């Protein structure tokens, strides 16, 4: 990054400060009007609607219900992150070890869900889990149950579906680091007397940690603000911050409270990005 900047500065044919400003102007205008203004508007609402003051924050943070929802959101995000890590790591590991067609096949299996709309995938879980859905039909037919199970609108369902949606992100994040570990390191470990597990424990795992950390951060942040899946698959008892904010905005029309809750969620996210992002140096990666 620093080198590139120095390079550009030394490049006599590069764009000067004024030209650079002109080049960046359109994107900044677009963002200022349609992104920054709406977000500051939200902040503004939280302090002014209906009255000037911090009443909305007192409500948001003082209410047992809202605190419970906030904690649930964090808790679900933790579980989903842990699940994607546990399920995703072996896939990333296999992907980094095989080559050619096998690797392509795994990549396709990971990428197809990634390129399929979150809404479609959430819908797929409804198809599977609803009262007369595929799972219940199957269980009824095999005689394992005689009444359809209530599988939807439960916390577990939201967790499973969110894990499903976020898993490819974790896999790709870990894989991108695993594949950059030189092959001769595991050969060296093996030559020096390490068996398969020792090689993994002492060499592969520690070297893959940057990928694990960035995957964890990414999945956790997305999970915190996840809307579609909990909105479709969750019930009243699985209300999360995102669905609560949505409700306040379009149903209760309490924009002040929606603003305050948004600011809380935003603050939490930025805090995490600040804490981990710096440690991870997300900046330098892949750019």
């Amino acid at each position: 990054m620093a080198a590139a900047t120095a390079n550009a500065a030394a490049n006599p044919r590069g764009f000067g400060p004024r030209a650079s400003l002109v080049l960046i102007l359109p994107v900044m205008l677009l963002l200022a009007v349609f992104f920054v203004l709406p977000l500051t508007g939200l902040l503004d609402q939280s302090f002014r609607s209906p009255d000037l003051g911090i009443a909305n924050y007192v409500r948001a943070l003082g209410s047992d219900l809202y605190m419970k929802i906030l904690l649930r959101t964090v808790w679900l995000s933790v579980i989903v992150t842990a699940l994607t890590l546990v399920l995703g790591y072996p896939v990333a590991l296999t992907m980094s070890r095989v080559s050619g067609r096998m690797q392509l096949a795994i990549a396709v299996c990971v990428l197809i869900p990634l390129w399929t709309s979150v809404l479609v995938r959430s819908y797929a879980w409804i198809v599977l889990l609803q009262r007369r859905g595929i799972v219940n039909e199957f269980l009824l037919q095999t005689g394992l149950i005689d009444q359809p199970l209530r599988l939807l609108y439960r916390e577990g369902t939201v967790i499973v579906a969110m894990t499903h949606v976020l898993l490819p992100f974790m896999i790709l994040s870990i894989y991108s680091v695993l594949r950059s570990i030189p092959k001769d390191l595991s050969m060296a470990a093996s030559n020096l007397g390490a068996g398969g597990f020792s090689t993994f424990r002492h060499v592969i795992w520690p070297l893959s940690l940057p990928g694990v950390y960035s995957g964890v951060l990414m999945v956790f942040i997305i999970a915190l603000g996840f809307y579609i899946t909990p909105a479709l698959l969750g019930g009243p008892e699985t209300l999360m911050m995102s669905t609560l904010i949505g409700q306040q905005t379009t149903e209760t029309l309490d924009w002040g409270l929606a603003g305050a809750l948004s600011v809380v969620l935003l603050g939490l996210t930025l805090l995490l990005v600040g804490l981990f992002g710096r440690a991870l140096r997300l900046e330098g990666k892949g750019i």
Partner: protein
Amino acid sequence: MMTNEASALRGRPAALRGGSVRIEGARKVYGSVRALDDVSLEVAPGEFLALLGPSGSGKTTLLMTVAGFEVPDAGMITVDGRDVTTVPPNRRDLGMVFQRYALFPHMSLRDNVGFPLRMRGVATDERAARADRVLGVVGLEGYGDRLPSQLSGGQQQRVALARAIVYEPPVLLMDEPLSALDKNLREQMRLEIKHLQKRLGVTVIFVTHDQEEALVMADRIAVLDKGRLVQIGAPRELYEKPCNPFVAGFLGETNFLTGTVAGRDAAGAPALALQNGASVAGSPAVPLDEGARALLSIRPEQITLQAGPAAAGALGGRVAEVIYAGASTIYLVDVGTGAPLNVRRPSGAEETLGEGTPVRVTWRASDARIFPAEA
């Protein structure tokens, strides 16, 4: 810096017991490529063997089968009489230095060097002590807490070496370990590694594509080409008595002349009649019939030039170009057989022959090798 590098490998470790390695009929096929084609060779305890060949010759594959990273399709590999053909790499107890050193980037030098000891259940304290001692042997005393990324290429090379010898393996495998270093350091490390090897008494199998490296370092050189073992022998033997044109051309510089076998010259040496009518002497690598097409190889430094026209039937020509190359001077001599002859003479030792000078071209019959011209 220079003196530090030069004196780096001076420490005195306990001598290791060199192991013997025996490869019998090793074959390995990848798809349609024969990486190893019936290779057999033996390495004696304490010997330094170089595996030399161009890329794709199978030298690395051969090393990998010894290390255990490749299992040959056929054949057997024994170390000290123990059949290790299918033993996994981590149970072979062989040391290895990788081309890019393969140091664990997240471990300190002490942990890197201590790693093989850790895998062998050596207690932490002893591990650290032995790692530090071996780091001292390779001239990196007091560097134990550093990370590999804080070292220069030459220093990383030394750590890789330390890590490979700390558990005192009977055999050390080296996969082009000097190829990532710059020229000066590379030439210096050649001798250092050779000296360390002699002091330790460890057996070394060393893969390289650099013929000079092989000549300088090895006790014996095995030349491979297209998966086959072409010739194995002491450096001098290979250089002076190559068994075929490939070895002659790959090991050092040489000139090739084509002609037909035409009886013997005045001194009784077999002679070769060239297209230009001249007849030259040489010693056949294999018995050759008169009239057979043949290829003569003569090294640039073994050709003698004398000013003056050549006698009828002898080889003569004109100096086409003189190239000063420091210690030696290269003369390109047009002898009328296509490509000019490349002749190397020590600079200043003899009279300078200007461009255009007619010269007589001679050499001792025993210095030139005659091979059957095949294909």
